[in-house]
């Protein structure tokens, strides 16, 4: 905290930027709600094994207790194979969050490197790289993921690959434009004019300013990734049954939808909660980073 005394009147305190962003975020009730939901879901995912029994409840079939509506024994009911819906959804949380986080981190790293190279070197390298990114962006994300899965086959690894690759161009773009916009600004010129070393400029000025939009993009991308995973699994191109992914749970449930809507309603609500939480956090971060948006 730095204190600046004005002659005669007020003392103005300057909070460090990170603290002020965090403070603004805290004030945003919806964003905090999202954060809480996300934390709960993360805990569920991490401690899934303690909450429900994978083998017995989520996977093995027990035709004697099939198609039960929600009850005290089975909070979310059972599906047409007698599997406990609650257990399936709990483990589905783990899968969705896992694939989501891993694919986002992978695409973030790859995209950041690509974007950084393009932004830093500029010129022909920048041009070539960005043309390639433009072409990738011209292909609708869902389509790109579908074609990768079409070629490589289904399964978690290929799904991860597909979702990561389809997210890379957006990260590359954001990182590149952050670097370009900051490197261009006058305060960087000023810093250079004072003799600041390049490395210091990068760490003190460029990275702190670039991190914001990148994190916002990461949370929002993760939200759409989770929907994407569910969508691919739903049409049979993602995670194969009997692994309980939310999308494939929905796909299996839709045949029984008429008389047992809980099989379809509940997994959907789980997806909505997870995605909504991420969207709220992403929006909240975006608002906290740009105080102009307040009034």
């Amino acid at each position, binding site marked *: 905290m730095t204190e600046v005394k004005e002659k005669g009147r007020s003392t103005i305190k300057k909070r460090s930027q990170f603290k002020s962003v965090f403070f603004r975020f805290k004030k945003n009730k919806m964003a905090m709600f999202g954060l809480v939901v996300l934390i709960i879901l993360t805990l569920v995912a991490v401690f899934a094994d303690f909450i429900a029994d994978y083998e017995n409840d989520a996977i093995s079939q027990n035709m004697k207790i099939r198609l039960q509506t929600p009850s005290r024994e089975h909070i979310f009911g059972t599906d047409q194979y007698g599997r406990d819906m609650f257990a399936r959804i709990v483990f589905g949380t783990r899968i969705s969050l896992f694939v989501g986080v891993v694919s986002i981190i992978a695409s973030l790293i790859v995209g950041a490197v690509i974007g950084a190279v393009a932004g830093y070197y500029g010129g022909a390298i920048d041009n070539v790289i960005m*043309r390639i990114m433009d072409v990738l962006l*011209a292909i609708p994300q*869902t389509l790109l993921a579908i*074609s990768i899965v*079409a070629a*490589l086959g289904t399964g978690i690894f290929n799904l991860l690959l597909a979702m990561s690759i389809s997210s890379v161009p957006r990260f590359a773009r954001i990182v590149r434009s952050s670097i370009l916009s900051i490197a261009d600004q006058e305060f960087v010129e000023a810093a250079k004019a004072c003799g600041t070393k390049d490395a210091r400029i990068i760490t003190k000025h460029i990275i702190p300013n670039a991190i914001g939009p990148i994190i916002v993009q990461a949370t929002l991308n993760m939200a759409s990734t989770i929907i994407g995973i569910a*969508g691919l699994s739903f049409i049979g191109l993602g995670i194969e049954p009997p692994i309980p992914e939310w999308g494939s749970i929905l796909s299996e449930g*839709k045949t029984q939808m008429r008389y047992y809507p809980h099989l379809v309603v509940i997994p959907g609500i789980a997806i909505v909660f997870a995605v909504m939480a991420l969207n709220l956090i992403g929006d909240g971060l975006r608002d906290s980073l740009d105080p102009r948006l307040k009034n």
Partner: protein
Amino acid sequence: MIKYILKRILLMIPVILGISFIVFLIMSFTPGDPARLILGEKASISDVENLREKMGLNDNFFVRYLRYVKDAVFYRDFGTSYATKIPVNADLMDRFPETLKLAFGSTLIMVLIGVPVGIISAVKQYSLIDKVTLGISLILTSMPVFWLGLMLILLFSLKLGWLPATGADTWVNFILPCFSLAASMMASLIRMTRSSMLEVIRQDYIRTARAKGAKEVTVIYKHALRNALLPIITIIGLNFGGLLGGTMIVESVFALPGVGTLTINSIRMKDTPMVMASVLFVAILAGIVNLIVDILYAYVDPRIKSQYAKN
């Protein structure tokens, strides 16, 4: 103006070539031998080898790619389906009207509802209407489109029996699918419209209009809206690609015989030429719509129009 249009069309060509290259590249990773697939498990190795030679499958990647492009551009031959054994064009032509109906129907609904809602939200910023709108948008955008579709089927088909769940016989069949797709994509349009309006309303020329004594209605519609619509047009174009991606999923939910279901079935049957052609088709369609939107934008924004009119 013509110059601008020609320039944009010319720029699109490398993009389309790039898309075709990337899709071809991805599809080349498909394991398995197409010749074997066509001839079946029982065929002899020499027969399979002969077919491979005939189909040019032993050539290297770039030769095969260029051959593909050559066939596509000069002969409109996008390959022969492994499954149906006839050129893929036939099935694609059959299917794409349904996908187009879905895509444009959804876009229409999305714009007719989303834009006015966004405007009202902006004009009455922070009011109850605004908050409710933003809340509903958030929930809609967090819903997977296929779930939304299922819920609508549950309510309007299964429980109430008002609307059909599957098939593509009449335009009524398209009501639920179009609404599902529109609803899930509407949120971003509402948000963009709202923020574009807010941005414009803050501009100095709006203050000038008020200082002239113009009615608030005039200020909003004549001055603010027309300026705000410019970026919105662009957004609609850009989002069309995502919309097309959504059509693939929606077709699956509602069993519409469009390009989406064709693609999914072809993937299951490992019919690579068909998959390739379908993906290419959708990607190119997205590019064309973007182009049209760009041209439209140039027409509507006098700053760009005059740039090219002078020439």
